[in-house]
């Protein structure tokens, strides 16, 4: 690799092992929802750094704009008004975007070699030049993140600013966050930082404050501090126990080699049948 920090740990549609000699630090972004004021500066930083400009849309009766992730919006804020306790309103604002799973479903589903890679530091990145636009990554993702561009039919999502991280910078959203709701560093440090935040939240009456680093996808390199860790679905339907769909695991897991083997076996069976039993020939004399 051109850059050591971009060593690839896993590569889509690749069956041989990756380079493993170097062991870069695992990185993580921590999103502390209890500190987030929903200012959307991260959305702007993302658009600016990545040269993205979504459409000027419309208001549909909520604060969320752009309405959803797209090829031009790799992160959006999702606003949820909830009353966890009777009479105590909370406005939970979640920055949505790629979670950079340790076991990335998108990568698992992708049929194009190298279109999706996972760097050794944990970042999951799409290499659009290898993307064929099949949309399989959509089926693999447990968080509904990748979006296929209407312009070029390629899949896009947050890169965790892999280009910035590779040269020792923090992602653009982290750089711009005014309240420190977004922090970035080694995954270990981020977990430690989160523990401090959770202790603080517990003191402030959030008994179920917790870190969101779901096991089902091997942990994530984007983690949340949630005031209500027991109810992640309050935060615009953040999945409680995300995992790669069993259908996708089935499809891209055992069936892929087994079916391929089955096809191979069928061909071989025919061949050996032919050389052992032989062809069915009809004696022309049979005719009158």
């Amino acid at each position, binding site marked *: 690799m051109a850059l050591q920090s971009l060593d690839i740990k896993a590569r889509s*549609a*690749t*069956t041989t092992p990756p380079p493993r000699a170097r062991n870069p630090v695992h990185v993580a972004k921590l999103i502390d929802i209890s500190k987030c004021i929903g200012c959307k500066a991260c959305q702007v930083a993302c658009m600016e750094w990545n040269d993205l400009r979504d459409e000027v849309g419309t208001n549909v009766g909520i604060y969320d704009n752009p309405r959803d992730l797209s090829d031009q919006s790799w992160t959006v804020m999702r606003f949820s008004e909830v009353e966890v306790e009777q009479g105590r309103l909370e406005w939970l604002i979640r920055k949505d975007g790629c979670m950079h799973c340790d076991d990335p479903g998108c990568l698992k589903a992708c*049929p*194009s*070699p190298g*279109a999706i890679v996972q760097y050794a530091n944990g970042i999951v990145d799409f290499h659009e030049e*290898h*993307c*064929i*636009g*099949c*949309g*399989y990554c*959509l*089926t693999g993702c447990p968080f*509904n993140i990748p979006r*296929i561009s*209407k312009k070029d*039919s390629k899949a896009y999502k947050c890169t965790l600013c892999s280009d910035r991280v590779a040269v020792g910078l923090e992602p653009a959203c982290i750089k711009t966050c005014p309240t420190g709701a977004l922090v970035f560093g080694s995954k270990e440090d981020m977990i430690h930082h989160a523990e401090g935040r959770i202790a603080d939240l517990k003191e402030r009456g959030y008994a179920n404050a917790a870190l969101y680093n779901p096991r089902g996808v091997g942990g994530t390199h984007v983690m949340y501090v949630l005031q209500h860790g027991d109810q992640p679905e309050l935060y615009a339907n953040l999945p409680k126990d995300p995992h790669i*769909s069993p*259908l*996708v695991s*089935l*499809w891209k897991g055992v*069936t*892929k*080699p087994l*079916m*391929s083997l*089955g*096809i191979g076996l*069928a*061909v071989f069976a*025919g061949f050996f*049948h*032919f050389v052992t*039993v*032989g*062809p*069915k*020939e*009809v*004696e*022309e*004399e*049979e*005719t009158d």
Partner: protein
Amino acid sequence: MRTTIQRYTARERSNHWVVAIAFILAGLSGLALFHPAFFFLTNLFGGGPWDRILHPFIGVVMFLSFVALAARFWRFNHFTPADRQWMKHIGDELCNRDERLPEVGKYNAGQKYLFWTVVVTVPVLLLSGVVIWQPWFAPYFPIWLLRVAVVIHALAAWIMILGIIVHVYAAIWVKGTVRAMTRGTVSEAWAKHHHRAWYREMTGK
């Protein structure tokens, strides 16, 4: 001079081969995306994106042409009590002990099974394919349906490929068969031997 019997008209043969070519192209371009080992096949189609773009259109061609083909052959593929008898002798068939086999019409039970397999898998492939067809139709379906569709599509394709492998092998194995689809005729001996009932029907003998 050897006598021959017309088994397929020119139209039927053309139709068959349109389906066959579409199947091969769809199969290859589909397999290319199914397992990394086959990804090199995308090169046959001009690379990954072209593979992805062409595959569904080829699939539609295969579907439409197969619908025509199925319409042509539908009535010959109804199962009869004789087919059950034939199936009991499948071992004899495979071991070339043809003398023990019961009389067969235009198609034997194995051929009929293949016919119905394809009749089922092709529409399933089309429907599941439409659901995952990027970028035209997939955005209109929920992701859970996409997940179901990719699995069904793969499974249906697999079954169909296995069926066609048997189909192709049978044509090679049973000598004198291929010309039915290339020239449209088979020898009287071939017909008498493999499809005696059909032979009698065609010749009145």
